[in-house]
């Protein structure tokens, strides 16, 4: 019987999400036949998240997976944080609903007052103050609305917009606070204490011979006594130092560097990362880096679960998504989605993901080449000020649509309905997932000519059609336009590449991981 495998997931609160790259990879491994007898160690703040994630995204018997945690009680600061976020979100989105509810409440109070006080004077005396205060509050509320209306008429819409944005602007400092140096220090302290407790628990588990750590941001795992295998997707800072300036990035870079000093075995996903990132950084230099390439991601089962015909399934998923998630979207709530023609980029907004050039290329396609399509992204442009400003200043917010943090079935539907997937990234740790995600549901891709892509795609005649220089907007425009106008041809041309990946399913990848776990060298005692 295979010995137990420990997996350490030290994500920050709220970050253990199924659409995040590292988690996606981890879930793919977990869903394979090879990953048996798994123990997942998580800090207490991820206790609920991991259960939810496993319930929603993992198909294997939950009894095969044990969760190791210090408990489900989270630190008071996280509790306060979550409550503040919830409250402010409610305030910013449900103002009108709240007013309506209050109106109904006032109506009921009046009815009760009239009914009871018409019979008994005592009730009149008792209820009068409640009624008066309720009415007063309602009037003040209404008056403030009227005042806003008046101000808007007199001084233009700016003032009203500003006042309207107050609850939303309260949320913004929350996001900023998160990045504040002292807040991060505070979080580090809390995290360090929690990780110490967790590592103690881990070290008590003598039945687990090897621990797999799927990211390089938790140097605290150096205290784990068993064998450690750490995945380093990339050290992107090395390649693009100018894109990653600032204290936070420096902080993260130091964490990765500390991780690389740990006596462990390392995994990465491409020759490029091994050669250009890890061998330079690992101290002391060791030959302990193994390349395990990604498997291919098949999204088609999300559609098959809904309907036999993938287009019908995708449209049904999008219809339901529109009704449940977009009902407050000012533009998309009334949009007839089945006819929308779009190109699709599924990625978080990060500096090296090259969103701005894609947006510029899209603008040329729409406004100079008259290619009548939209650009749908899954990242949130608000995470990058320059990008967000560009979209708004060029008035592209009705054509570049961000569907942020979508479920897997929506991702599958979007991939299927897209004319073409686009990936303009400057760098990836492994061959972009977006290719097989799109192809598995019938959509071709155009993407950046970057080393990890060239490692896998050697057919230059195909590359000259589907790859563009991510630094050249013109090249991007030409390749996307060709892809959009020759979708079926491109799809056929990419079949060979896809089939090469399709052979490599996650069972094969998982077996390579398991082999590595079994043959990992014992660590030097720290």
């Amino acid at each position, binding site marked *: 019987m295979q010995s137990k495998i420990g997996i350490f997931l030290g994500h920050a609160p709220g970050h253990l999400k199924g659409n995040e790259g590292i988690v996606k990879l981890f879930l793919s491994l977990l869903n394979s036949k090879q990953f048996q007898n798994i123990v997942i160690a998580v800090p207490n703040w991820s206790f609920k998240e991991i259960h939810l994630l496993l319930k929603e995204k993992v198909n294997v018997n939950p009894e095969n997976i044990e969760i190791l945690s210090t408990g489900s009680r989270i630190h008071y600061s996280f509790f306060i944080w979550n409550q503040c976020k919830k409250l402010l979100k409610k305030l910013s989105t449900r103002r009108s609903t709240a007013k309506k509810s209050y109106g109904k409440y006032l109506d009921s109070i009046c009815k009760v007052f009239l009914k009871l006080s018409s019979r008994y004077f005592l009730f009149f005396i008792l209820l009068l103050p409640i009624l008066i205060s309720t009415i007063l509050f309602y009037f003040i509320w209404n008056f403030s609305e009227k005042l806003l209306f008046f101000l808007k008429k007199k001084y233009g819409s700016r003032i009203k917009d500003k006042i309207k944005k107050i609850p939303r602007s309260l949320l913004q400092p929350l996001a900023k606070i998160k990045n504040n140096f002292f807040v991060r220090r505070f979080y580090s302290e809390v995290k360090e204490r929690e990780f110490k407790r967790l590592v103690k628990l881990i070290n008590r588990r003598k039945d687990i011979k090897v621990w797999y750590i799927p990211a390089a941001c938790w140097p605290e795992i150096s205290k784990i006594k068993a064998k450690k295998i750490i995945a380093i997707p990339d050290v992107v800072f090395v390649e693009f130092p100018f894109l990653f300036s600032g204290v936070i990035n420096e902080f993260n870079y130091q964490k990765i560097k500390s991780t690389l000093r740990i006596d462990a075995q390392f995994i990465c996903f491409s020759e490029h990362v091994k050669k250009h990132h890890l061998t330079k950084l690992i101290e002391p230099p060791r030959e302990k880096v193994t390349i395990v390439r990604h498997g291919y991601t098949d999204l088609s089962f999300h559609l098959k679960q809904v309907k036999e015909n993938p287009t019908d399934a995708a449209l049904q998923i999008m219809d339901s998504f529109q009704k449940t998630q977009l009902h407050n979207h000012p*533009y998309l709530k*009334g949009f*007839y989605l089945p*006819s929308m*023609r779009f190109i699709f980029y599924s990625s978080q907004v990060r500096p090296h993901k090259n969103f701005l050039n894609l947006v510029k290329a899209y603008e040329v396609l729409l406004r100079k080449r*008259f290619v*009548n399509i*939209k650009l749908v992204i899954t990242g949130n442009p608000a995470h990058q000020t320059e990008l967000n400003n560009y979209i708004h200043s*060029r*008035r592209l917010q009705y054509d570049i649509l961000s569907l942020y943090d979508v479920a897997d079935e929506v991702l599958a539907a979007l991939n299927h309905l897209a004319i073409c997937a686009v990936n303009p990234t400057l760098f990836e740790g492994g061959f972009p997932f977006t290719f097989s995600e799109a192809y598995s549901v019938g959509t071709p891709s155009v993407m950046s000519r970057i080393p990890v892509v060239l490692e896998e795609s050697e057919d230059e005649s195909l590359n000259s059609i589907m790859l563009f220089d991510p630094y050249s907007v013109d090249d991007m425009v030409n390749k996307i336009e060709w892809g959009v106008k020759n979708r079926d041809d491109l799809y056929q041309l990419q079949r060979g590449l896809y089939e090469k990946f399709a052979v490599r399913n996650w069972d094969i990848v998982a077996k390579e991981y398991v082999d590595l776990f079994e043959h990992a060298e014992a660590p030097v005692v720290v």
Partner: protein
Amino acid sequence: MTAQNTLRECSSVIPVISQDYPKVQKVKKIALFLPIGYRGGSLRGAKNIAKMLFLGSKACDHSLEVVFSFCEGAYPSVEVFSDLLELGISIRETKWTKIAKRDFPFMGNSSPSKSLEEAKEYSLPTDGIANFSDCDFWLLISDRLDPPLAPLVPYGIVVYDYIQRYVPELFSKLEKGYLTTARNASFVITTTPQTQNDTIQYAGIDPRKVTMIPMDFCPPLLPSTSVRPHHRPYFLWVTNTSPHKNHLRSLQALEIFYKQYDGVLDVVMVGIFLDLFQNPTDKNPYPYTREISKYIEQSPVLKEKCQIKGEVTDQTYANLLAHAEFLWHPTLVDNGTFAVVEAAYLGVASVSSDYPAMRYMNERFDLDLLFFDAFDSQDIARKLASMSKEAKTRRAALPSPHHLDQFTAERSAQDFWTTIRERIYAI
């Protein structure tokens, strides 16, 4: 086959899209709204639609009454609409007011269904009589209403373009009202495939609600003189002061044309508000027109060669067009310009920007246009130079007036009414 049978047949073919309004039983009176004080080609287009409705319904034995609504104070006199009045189309001066959503319940039984897209405020046409509630159906010419049209009566809409999608500088804010107006319409009519696509891709409207009607054409007046109305040979530039007319790049192209290609022809500019291009001082109220004025002012060759005539009468326009060497249309994008068809009608060739609506017009009217890239001053200048040489030979390839006559509103009226009628009864 009776007309009713034909109707029933059409209704069964066209999918029933909207159950949001009371079903239209019979249309006797249609109000046609022009919500902005358009002039020139846009006004002509709107009047053409009124004529087509009236004449088309008459030809189909429908006793349809057409009411043409125009904005209060937008036109100097009702003489502008004399052609409509002569036909028997009534006109109503209309004031557009805003009403709050909460006022809807007091506005009769036709309050809109919940499935329509809501707005906090709506635009309501008021005529001092019954606010067009005497009309069974409304047809809105252009979507330019913000807040959106109050959906009190079933309405259709004719959308000419979504130019704001292509030239973002034109609008200072997002045009949510326009989109809601279009989305709440029972159907949307467009006149070019590009706008049809934009209606689906930008306004997000179900394609089954969108119909493209064949573009009609109103012949220009014939020239009243055989004497050239300008003292030197010239080509004509029909424009206005909107930035989408691509003035700066066009002026740069003209400089190249005169300097590098030894261009000799003058350029005569006609269109409304062009006097603003002759005022580079700070008294010019608009930064854009001030900038263009300054550009012309600072260029000796442009000062000499650019002749700004401004807004001219239809007859002067016909005279200028008929005697031009060719017509130049360097606009970035729009729904196409009839000026090129009018030019062809008078035997004048055109050189035009290459964008989808002009490609469509070129094909539909068989115009043999010479195209250039409107974003590339060098290319524009090059094509101007080519056209200067080829204009005369190109005239031979132009369609005859007889050929173009088949596209007039009068000839298209019956088809137009049939399309509209089918759409109305499909509600």
